């Protein structure tokens, strides 16, 4: 697997030393907050309602057990015994002391981790399909390309002061599990007829207060042109992106205001200048980085089939977990395991230090030392032999990590909301907990099938509510919390932005409203296999409006 190189190592150590000095000068009063704030943000340190927050980058969501144990250690030693995995495949700590942050960063650096570019108007952590390297429907592993982009964009002098933050996502499979169409740049790996690898390139997607689906500006970009073409996009954005208004500064607004053809033309023109520059990627470089991501050697383990059938028969809980949380792997004797961080009634995305240690141990024993963080705020063990599923399940069960709900109605994404976040209008987590409890019965979840609820505590949309099948947005009305409901969003290969269904609901009424929506769906679906999203796309919002607000009122 990829090891960050000596340059990274020296650079990160230098940055930690620099930050230690800056924190020291801040605490002694030599540096004022105005001068210090941009410096702490460059190192991932935010201020929330109750304390500082540290955001640690997990490039394309990939971790080994040593790194996950370090994350556990930091939670234990410097925080309150837990961390929060986010929709950007990062982890956030909610209670670090400013004075400790240099030590935390130094400890992270010892396992090749850091908090660089987790804030500010730069190219942020590049995200990727959490099943990368394992999925059966994959054309190629997206992580080598994400890594090439990471190396290229790290402290890139030209792109460190963009008009606004910039997010890139890469997927390598037919099914888009990285929500690339709601990123500033989305890259979809594919093969052309000649069998060569390239990318479909999307630009200008995003969430926040002006959600937009990205536009495709290239159907096939050869892999060697990845950096030159991306640089061309960045240059057009850096030059023309709006710096006068923070709310209009993302590339999505530029794409929208310029028009996609005009913008694509500008990018192509810029690209012509760069195409044969030193940004062209030599095959040898791609091969060298790809080698870091070589899959583990997966021995044939056909004995797992028989054992699995036997275990499933003996234990209904285990059977449910396998059916819901284990997906087919490229290798037929293996599976991809979702370790749910969504216990019924629990806090989405939170994991205790003990749970992190447990997953690290289990990954070492059963999963070739590989762990992923998914943008759906779960952990993934991408390579587990079917023959090892039962002992793995026992290990997860011992730590409350066996919830069988991947992709179901209780697999809720929620941002920190008003329980932590200084920008929030309303709470997200208690609502997620109430919904999870309401729909938590296994039979009920199975009956409902795939349904993604996503909750944000304000319009910044960190909880992806715009692309939730059911999206919940917290707003403030007359000093109280109110939740707006959107329906029909999705963040996959057929992305769509959810539509606001009507007036919002008070905290004590919103769970009932969601239940009404779910019951309406159950009543109108053609058959059990028609998912909520499919049904919504077929019938539109009206039946749901009628059910929520009454037929007369909705028509008015």
């Amino acid at each position: 697997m990829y090891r960050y190189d000596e340059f990274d190592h020296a650079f990160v150590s230098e940055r930690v030393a620099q930050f230690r000095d800056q924190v020291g000068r801040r605490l002694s009063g030599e540096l004022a907050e105005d001068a210090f704030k941009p410096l702490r943000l460059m190192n991932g340190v935010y201020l929330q309602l109750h304390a500082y927050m540290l955001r640690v980058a997990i490039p394309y969501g990939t971790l080994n057990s040593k790194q996950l144990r370090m994350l556990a250690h930091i939670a234990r030693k410097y925080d309150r015994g837990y961390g929060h995995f986010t929709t950007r495949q990062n982890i956030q700590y909610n209670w670090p002391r400013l004075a400790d942050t240099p030590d935390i960063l130094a400890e992270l650096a010892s396992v090749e981790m850091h908090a660089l570019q987790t804030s500010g108007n730069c190219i942020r952590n590049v995200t990727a399909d959490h099943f990368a390297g394992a999925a059966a429907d994959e054309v190629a592993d997206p992580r080598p390309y994400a890594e090439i982009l990471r190396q290229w964009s790290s402290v890139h002098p030209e792109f460190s002061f963009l008009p606004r933050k910039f997010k890139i996502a890469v997927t390598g499979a037919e099914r888009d599990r990285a929500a690339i169409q709601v990123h500033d740049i989305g890259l979809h790996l594919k093969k052309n007829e000649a069998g060569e690898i390239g990318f479909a390139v999307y630009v200008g997607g995003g969430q926040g207060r002006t959600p937009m689906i990205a536009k495709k500006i290239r159907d096939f970009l050869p892999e060697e042109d990845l950096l030159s073409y991306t640089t061309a996009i960045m240059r057009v954005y850096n030059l023309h992106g709006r710096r006068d208004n923070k709310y209009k500064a993302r590339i999505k607004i530029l794409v929208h205001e310029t028009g996609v053809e005009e913008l694509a033309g500008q990018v192509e023109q810029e690209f012509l200048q760069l195409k044969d520059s030193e940004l062209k990627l030599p095959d040898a470089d791609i091969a060298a980085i790809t080698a870091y991501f070589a899959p583990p050697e997966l021995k044939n383990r056909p004995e797992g089939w028989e054992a699995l059938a036997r275990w499933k028969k003996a234990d209904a809980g285990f059977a449910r977990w396998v059916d819901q949380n284990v997906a087919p792997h490229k290798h037929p004797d293996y599976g991809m395991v979702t370790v749910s961080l969504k216990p019924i009634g629990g806090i989405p995305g939170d994991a205790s230090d003990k749970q992190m240690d447990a997953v690290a141990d289990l990954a070492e024993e059963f999963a070739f030392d590989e762990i992923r963080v998914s943008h759906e705020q779960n952990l993934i063990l991408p390579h587990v032999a079917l023959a090892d599923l039962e002992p793995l399940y026992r290990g997860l069960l011992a730590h409350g990590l066996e919830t069988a709900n991947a992709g179901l109605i209780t697999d809720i994404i929620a941002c920190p909301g008003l329980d932590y976040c200084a920008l929030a209008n309303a709470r997200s987590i208690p609502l997620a907990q109430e919904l999870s409890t309401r729909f938590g019965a296994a039979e009920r979840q199975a009956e409902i099938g795939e349904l993604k609820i996503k909750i944000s505590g304000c319009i910044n949309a960190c909880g992806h509510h715009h692309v939730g099948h059911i999206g919940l947005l917290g707003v403030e009305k007359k000093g109280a919390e109110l939740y707006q409901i959107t329906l029909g969003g999705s963040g996959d290969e057929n992305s769509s932005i959810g539509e606001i269904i009507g007036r919002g609901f008070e905290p004590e009424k919103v769970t009932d409203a969601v239940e009404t929506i779910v019951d309406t769906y159950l009543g109108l679906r053609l058959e059990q296999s028609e998912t909520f999203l499919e049904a919504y796309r077929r019938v539109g919002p009206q039946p749901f409006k009628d059910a929520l607000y009454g037929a007369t009122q909705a028509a008015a």
Partner: protein
Amino acid sequence: MSDKVLTANRLSDGISVWLDASGQWVENLQDAFVARHAEAVAALEASGKAAVADNKVVDVNVIEIEEKDGVLRPLRLRERIRAEGPTIDYAPGYRGLLGPFEAA
């Protein structure tokens, strides 16, 4: 005028604090100095400026509160959550209003 208190986050660890009558920053809103008229609010604002200049705290704000049965409560939910802690049971050792976090 509604009653007011001065709040901030402590520089060294970011913990929410309120200004008490002796000019100390305390972790419990109930110990805060309550300004009940314009001059007292002006004094709070002056203390806030001085505390920022003194690098003791960051993000200083005068906020509105009400007193009911001797208990102080901010008017805005945001400030209530700052004063009372997250409304969720986020980790063993969290005791909400019963007192500060104690590692389990």
